[in-house]
């Protein structure tokens, strides 16, 4: 199996994981969406040099992962796949921002390195939470939840198709790569070959997408996403949302690490 193909198969595993019966998958998709949005808002709202104050937020993705029994190795592979983007986004910081900042009593560091660390941490937090939610809900149920929350149909249907077509494009690409290798193509293709491959890939993916679209129409798909488990809001969902949002608000309002430190030193003294 080519690298691309196995990476995609691996991503697809999210849907397979979501089919299991776990504490996370039993929650209403809407509860997970709302809570995760609140989580994202809280994490993003911090000033760019924040590192330590973000640490309490680790609790949420960790809780999702364990509730959803999401395999850590799978998660780590997905994070590693996306990590270069975060590094790319943040790498200019240490170069541009060299002003020293005091990180602990008597220890200073260039501000750029701290904001770089902050970007990486936020990236890890948000991507882990998002992956865990997908793996604990499934893309279809997630889109159904989004629609039930009032997201316009065009958007949710689009998202579902995007998810589906990503595998189509990847699958076609993998098949073409295999075919090229089978005919002795080696190394990276020349520009001309590359252009022709890319053109073919798009055409094939397009035709396949059209067939898929037809197959969905033939089975009565009209743009509305109907969940295969009826959305049912229970008291567990309320507890989940209220509990976590309260925690986010508290963590945002109070500098928890400091409070914890004071408590400890207070006790010690």
């Amino acid at each position, binding site marked *: 199996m080519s690298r691309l193909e196995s990476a995609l198969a691996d991503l697809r595993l999210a*849907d397979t994981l979501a089919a299991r019966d776990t504490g996370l998958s039993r929650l209403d998709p809407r509860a997970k969406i709302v809570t995760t949005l609140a989580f994202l808002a809280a994490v993003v709202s911090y000033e760019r040099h924040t590192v330590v104050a973000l640490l309490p937020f680790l609790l949420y993705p960790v809780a999702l992962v364990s509730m959803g029994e999401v395999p850590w190795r799978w998660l780590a592979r997905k994070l590693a796949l996306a990590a270069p983007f975060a590094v790319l986004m943040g790498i200019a910081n240490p170069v541009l921002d060299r002003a020293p900042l005091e990180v602990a009593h008597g220890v200073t560091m260039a501000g750029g390195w701290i904001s770089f660390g902050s970007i990486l941490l936020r990236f890890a937090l948000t991507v882990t939470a998002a992956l865990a939610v997908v793996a604990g809900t*499934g893309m*279809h149920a997630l889109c159904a939840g989004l629609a039930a929350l009032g997201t316009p149909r065009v958007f949710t249907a689009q998202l579902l198709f995007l998810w589906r077509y990503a595998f189509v494009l990847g699958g076609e690409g993998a098949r073409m790569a295999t075919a090229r290798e089978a005919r002795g193509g080696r190394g990276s293709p020349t520009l001309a070959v590359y252009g022709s491959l890319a053109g073919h890939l798009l055409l094939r993916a397009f035709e*396949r997408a059209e067939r898929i679209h037809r197959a969905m*129409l033939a089975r*009565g798909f009209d743009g509305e996403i109907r969940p295969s488990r*009826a959305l049912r809001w229970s008291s567990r969902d309320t507890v989940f949302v209220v509990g976590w949002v309260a925690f986010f608000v508290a963590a945002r309002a109070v500098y928890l690490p400091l409070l914890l430190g004071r408590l400890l030193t207070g006790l010690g003294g």
Partner: protein
Amino acid sequence: MNQQVVEAIGLSYAYPDGTTALDGASFRVAPGESVAIVGGNGAGKSTLLLMMAGLLEANAGEVRIGDVSVTPGSRDFVRRTIGFVFQDADDQLFMPTVKEDVAFGPLNFGVPAEEAASLAATALDVVGASHLAERPPYHLSGGEKRAVALAGVIAMGPSVLLLDEPTAGLDPAARRRLIKLLQAFEHTRIVATHDLDFVLDVCARVLVMEGGRIVADGAPDAVFRDEPLLARCHLEAPLRWQG
């Protein structure tokens, strides 16, 4: 099962790139009849089926189910009446588990989730794939995928089944199971295929297509004896008749 006559009247179609795929095809299928459509590659079989399911609009001519004309306006009725099993099951399967995939059609018709799940379970039982219910469809074998795709269509309760090359890629045992299954169905069945032995087993009537037209229509036993016709249409007599 509430069944109607299915009728194609002078269907013509050219793809946007100018390829003529159908050139005045007409025929009439009685309720409960099992009809094969055979013909060489590019004869227009798949295009014809798509048009009968209202998934492609004819340039000229019309498809009628009972006294309803297949148009965008009658789409809901057509979706409920006609079940389409696609040539490539991979195009059809996409939900995370088999049981959810089979329930997809009924859910789209507004059937409540629990009821859709039970319709799905029944349909899986009919095709003998109940044991696959919890599996992700994309990890199944070709034959299993075909069975699940068929279940997804059966679950919608259509009275007409359109099947595009249902035996392609099946091993002999899976092919035999499909034959048994289709023989037992009471649906109106229209099957595009290259498998003439399959036609002998499942269909009482065969239409031969060439260049977008129906060039022969009759009992398989008679039509498949016409060697010049078969040769012209890139076909060969059924294997069981050969040596």
